[in-house]
C-alpha cells in the first residue's frame, strides 16, 4: 500500500497472465514497441523521395496560420472560404495566431454564420435542408432509442434533453426572424 515501501502484491502473477492472455508480455521489451523512443531520426524510413515536396499550385488566395513562414507545399482545397463567413475566417487567420483565443472564437463564429448562410442558399437552390433526414432522428425508432436508454445508469440522460433544443433553436430563431421580416415587408407595402 501507499503508506509503506513495498508495492501491493500482484493479484495474478506474470506467469499466470502469460498463460491466460494471448500476447501477454510480447512487447515488454521496448525494442518491440514501435513508438519507442518517441523521436527516431530516420529520414529514409517514410518513403519520401524528396528533401522538400514539390509545391501544389493554389487556385486562389489560401488562408494560413501566421505561425507558418509560408503556405505549406501541400494543402486541402475542400471548402474554400466564401461569403461573410469567409471574411471572418480570413480575418481570424490573418490577424491572430493559434495562441490567441480570438483566433478560435472567430472561427467558431464563422462556422455559425456559414451554417445560417448555407440554409438560405440551399433553400434558394431548391434543395432545402431536411431536419428529419439530416439529424438521423429516425434511428431512434429503428435502433431502439428507448430500450437503449431504459434500465441503464447512463449519466448522459441528465443532459441529453438539451440536444433537441440545440438542434431546433436555429430553426425557431430563423423562423421568428423570417416572420418579423415578412410582417415588416407587408406593413410597409400598405
Amino acid at each position: 500500500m501507499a503508506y509503506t515501501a513495498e508495492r501491493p502484491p500482484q493479484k495474478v502473477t506474470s506467469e499466470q497472465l502469460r498463460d491466460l492472455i494471448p500476447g501477454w508480455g510480447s512487447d515488454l521489451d521496448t525494442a518491440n514497441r514501435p513508438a519507442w523512443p518517441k523521436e527516431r531520426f530516420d529520414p529514409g524510413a517514410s518513403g519520401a523521395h524528396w528533401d522538400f515536396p514539390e509545391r501544389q499550385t493554389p487556385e486562389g488566395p489560401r488562408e494560413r496560420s501566421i505561425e507558418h513562414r509560408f503556405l505549406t507545399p501541400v494543402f486541402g482545397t475542400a471548402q474554400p472560404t466564401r461569403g461573410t463567413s469567409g471574411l471572418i475566417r480570413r480575418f481570424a487567420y490573418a490577424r491572430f495566431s493559434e495562441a490567441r483565443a480570438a483566433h478560435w472564437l472567430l472561427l467558431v463564429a464563422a462556422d455559425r454564420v456559414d451554417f445560417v448562410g448555407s440554409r438560405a442558399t440551399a433553400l434558394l437552390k431548391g434543395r432545402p435542408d431536411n431536419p428529419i433526414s439530416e439529424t438521423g432522428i429516425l434511428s431512434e425508432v429503428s435502433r431502439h432509442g428507448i430500450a437503449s436508454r431504459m434500465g441503464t445508469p447512463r449519466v448522459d440522460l441528465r443532459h441529453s434533453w438539451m440536444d433537441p433544443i440545440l438542434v431546433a433553436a436555429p430553426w425557431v430563431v430563423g423562423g421568428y426572424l423570417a416572420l418579423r421580416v415578412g410582417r415588416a415587408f407587408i406593413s410597409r407595402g400598405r
Partner: protein
Amino acid sequence: MQAMTYRGPYRVRVEEKAMPRIEHPNDAIVRVTLAAICGSDLHLYHGLMPDTRIGHTFGHEFIGVVEEVGSSVQNLQRGDKVMVPFNIYCGSCFFCARGLYSNCHNVNPNATAVGGIYGYSHTCGGYDGGQAEFVRVPFADVGPSVIPDWLDDEDALLLTDACSTGYFGAQLGDIVEGDTVVVFGAGPVGLYAAKSAWFMGAGRVIVVDQLEYRLAKARSFAHAETFNFAEYDDIVVEMKKTTDYLGADVAIDAVGAEADGNFLQHVTASKLKLQGGSPIALNWAIDSVRKGGTISVVGAYGPIFSAVKLGDAMNKGLTLRMNQAPVKRQWPRLLEHIQAGHLKPSELITHRVPLEHIAEGYHMFSAKLDDCIKTVVVPEAN
C-alpha cells in the same frame, strides 16, 4: 460522386459532389471500399471543432482501391488495394524525419499545432475525408500501404486509426511489468488500449466507462476489470480503493473532448462550446494515478482552452504523454500481433451501414443506441 457532407451541428446528409482530382504530383485518387465513423468524428458532428465548414466530408478511417496516381508516384499503381493512415504527412519535414508523422509541418497551412487529417475540418488542413465514394490521398508514396493478401478488409480498416491509436496509447504509458493500468473510455480506442496494455506486461488492466454493454466488451475482448462510473459517487475514490490507496501506475485518457460524468464540464464543453473539450476523463486520470505515475492522452481535444487540473498533475509529479498516433509506425508490429492471433481488430464492429444512411449511423453512434461500438460505412460504388 456521393459523399457525406456536414450541414451544421448534429446534421449530415449525402450529396452529389465533384470527383476529387490530382492536385499535386504525389497525389492518388482512391475509390473507398470501406470507411468507419470514429468517436472523434462526433466532435466535428457536434460542432466542437473550429473551422468545420458546411459541405465538409468527414472520414479519416478508410480503405480503398487506387483509381489514379499523380506523375511522381512510384510506390502505388492503379488497382492497388490500400489502407490509408488518418495522418496526412510529407515524410520529409523535421518532424516526419523523426517519426512524428502525425505532426507533419508541410501539409496543414491552417495550423502549426496539428498535422493534416482527412475529413477533420480546415483546422486540420482542409482535406475532404473518406466517407465518400472517392477521396484525394496526398503523398501517396508515404502514407498508404498495400493491404497484405492475408489481412481481412475490416481489420485493415481499423488499423487506419482506432486500433493503431489504442496501441499507441498503451505505449505512451511506458508500462513496465506488473503495472496497474486504468483506461478511461470503453470505446474502440480504449478497448484496443486495454488489450495492448497486456502486450506490454501490465499486471492489472481496469476499464472505466458508463455504458454497461461497452464494459461487457471490455471484459470479453480486453480481459479487463471494469467499473461503471455512473454507479459510484466518486470514481476516483474507487480507483484508490481498488489499488490499496496507491493509485494506478498508468492512466490512459481514451475519451477526449466529450467526456461525461460532470454536468458542468460536459455542458460547458459539449453543449455550449465554451471549452476545447470537457476534460473529465483527463482530470479523473490525473487524480486516479499514483504520484510519479504516467498519464497517456489519446482522446482528442479541440484547440480552445480546457479546464484541466494541472495543479494536481504538477504536485503529484506526473508525466503527461500525448499525441495523435503516428499510425503507419505502428503497422508492422500490429500486423505481427494480428498474424500471431493476439488481436482481431474487427471484433469491435457492431454495425455496418450504407453511405446513404450515414445520418442515421451518426445519430445512433452519437446517442449510443443499439449497443453501438463501431460503425462501418459502405459506399454506394461497391
